[in-house]
């Protein structure tokens, strides 16, 4: 074990890990954002009393979300192995990290979307219906714009949760900042590397939060 940290050796590795994290997080967020929004909307509109009330669809979707969400992510990564295999053709590496991250993030986002929509004043939806708006139009022209501020904050929260997930998928060889901190820091008793990586993650999370807050404020400025 070296007393001196060899930064000349580590910095390129750190850059690579940072890139891997950004890539995993971005792709997962992209998929989870679209899928989670759709799923959350579906749960909301099929909820009792809403305009596409459907007890069966609501129950199935609600159960799906409630089943997946409590599974610890590290176990979930392995549990969906067969699905990952079917989707990306392998169960290790950075591609294999995307399905579990995207699925877990999608169900989390679905719940956040639904909760923010439930908080909307149903009177606004009724007003749109009274004008003769179709259901689909109500979704994109009333529900989403009216809840945009809270939805941006929810997505910010999700982004940070996905950054957190990306630290776990080093377990299946996906790399990333978490993997870097463990392999080059923790396992070599080099706390300097661990802390440096943690500092980078903190800065990343702060940036995401500041950006999210600013966008939400812009959406809510009225």
């Amino acid at each position, binding site marked *: 074990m070296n007393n001196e940290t060899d930064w000349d050796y580590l910095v390129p590795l750190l850059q690579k890990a940072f890139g891997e994290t950004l890539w995993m997080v971005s792709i997962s967020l992209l998929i989870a954002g679209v899928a989670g929004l759709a799923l959350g909307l579906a749960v909301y509109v099929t909820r009792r009393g809403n305009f596409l009330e459907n007890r069966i669809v609501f129950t199935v979707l609600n159960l799906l979300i409630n089943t997946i969400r409590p599974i610890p992510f590290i176990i979930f990564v392995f549990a969906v192995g067969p699905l990952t295999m079917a989707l990306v053709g392998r169960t290790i590496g950075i591609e294999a990290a995307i399905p579990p991250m995207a699925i877990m993030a999608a169900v989390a986002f679905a719940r956040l979307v639904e909760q923010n929509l439930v908080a909307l004043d149903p009177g*606004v939806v*009724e007003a749109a219906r*009274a*004008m*003769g*708006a179709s259901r689909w139009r109500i979704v994109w022209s*009333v529900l989403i714009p*009216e809840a*945009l501020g809270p939805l941006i904050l929810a997505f910010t929260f999700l982004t940070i949760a996905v950054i957190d997930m990306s630290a776990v998928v080093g377990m299946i060889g996906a790399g990333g900042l978490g993997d870097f901190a463990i392999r080059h820091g923790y396992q070599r008793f080099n706390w300097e590397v661990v802390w440096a990586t943690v500092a980078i993650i903190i800065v990343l999370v702060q940036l995401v939060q500041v950006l999210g807050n600013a966008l939400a404020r812009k959406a809510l400025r*009225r």
Partner: protein
Amino acid sequence: MSTTAPPMVSFRHAVKTFPAKSGEVRAVDDVTLDIRTGEIFGVIGYSGAGKSTLVRLINALEPATAGEVIVDGQDVTALPERELRRVRAGIGMIFQQFNLLSSRTVAGNVGYALAVAGWPREERKDRIAELLDFVGLADKARQYPSQLSGGQKQRVGIARALATNPKILLADEATSALDPETTQDVLDLLRRVNSELGVTVVVITHEMDVVKYACDRVAVMEGGKVVEHGDVYSVFARPEHRATRRFVGTALRDRPSPAALERLRHRHPGRIVTVAVREDGASSTDLTRALREHPVDGTIIYGGIVEIAERPYGSLTLELAGEDAAIAGFITDLSSTTSVLDLGTAEHPLADPDAVGPRATTASPEGDEGPSSPTLPQAVDTDRLADADSPTWNPFTHLRRWRR
């Protein structure tokens, strides 16, 4: 407006039920009613009477469970969703909480209704300007709803509801969240909508003042049923249903509440009567004449006269002093032209069966005489007096607590 024109809205045995924990709730229970083309029609009732559900049958926001709802010649209960959207676009609606899109500006809210109705973008701008001008908000086009006062928000609501030139405007407790002065402004605007644009307006309210000021005809709802309907003046001047009488009394407060009556009796221990004042104005003239012709002194101790549908309405409560026979003669004489309610004396009190407001602290006897039935001096049943400690159950006191 010609009365021979077909009704704008026609309910035929309309029923709307909602599933509830124990069986079902009949929110609208066999309503048959016509709303005439070009009128301002009021639907009045306490919370939970079914009035909101009734008007939602018109634009089928709530589909009827049974019966027919014919809107502008078309039975909306028979239409599929796609057709209903077209019908709804021809019916404007405004709401108690305004229900504006907070993410859009004033112009954006009005424009939204036009977009939904499929107006080409280039035509929307002029229409928005025209509508905002009509409701007096031309200078607020670029503001967001959160920057407006309640009255201004409702004006935006009205502009939005009128965007597509509807034939009908439904106003669901549209003034209930507004202060009295703003309420007046909004009602004036609704009257303009009716008179200048010829829009049939349906106003749901629990506020008597709204009906009094704005409506041509009114339906009184209770427990899902329309218990009384007709010309505003005749419904309120000669209310046949107890719910209507309560409503009128609560709103006008022209008759002393049991508690007020009790206080009056302390100061005025003599014979107290309440004399109705009605449209022809003759009743107050008659009162003056009767006081002159009979050896009776009358002191006005309570009362109020207001206008309903531009005609006088109210009552005066008097203490009468004189010989018993003279008082009896006075009451009989006056009863021939207007309704007189005998409230007895401090020693032998009689209750007003339709009194509203705080109860008397001591027992008050039960009176079976309505205000429309002239009464002669009665012997007071002292046995019943003794039993009357427990206040009679009043189905409306619990409802009144719901108001606001």
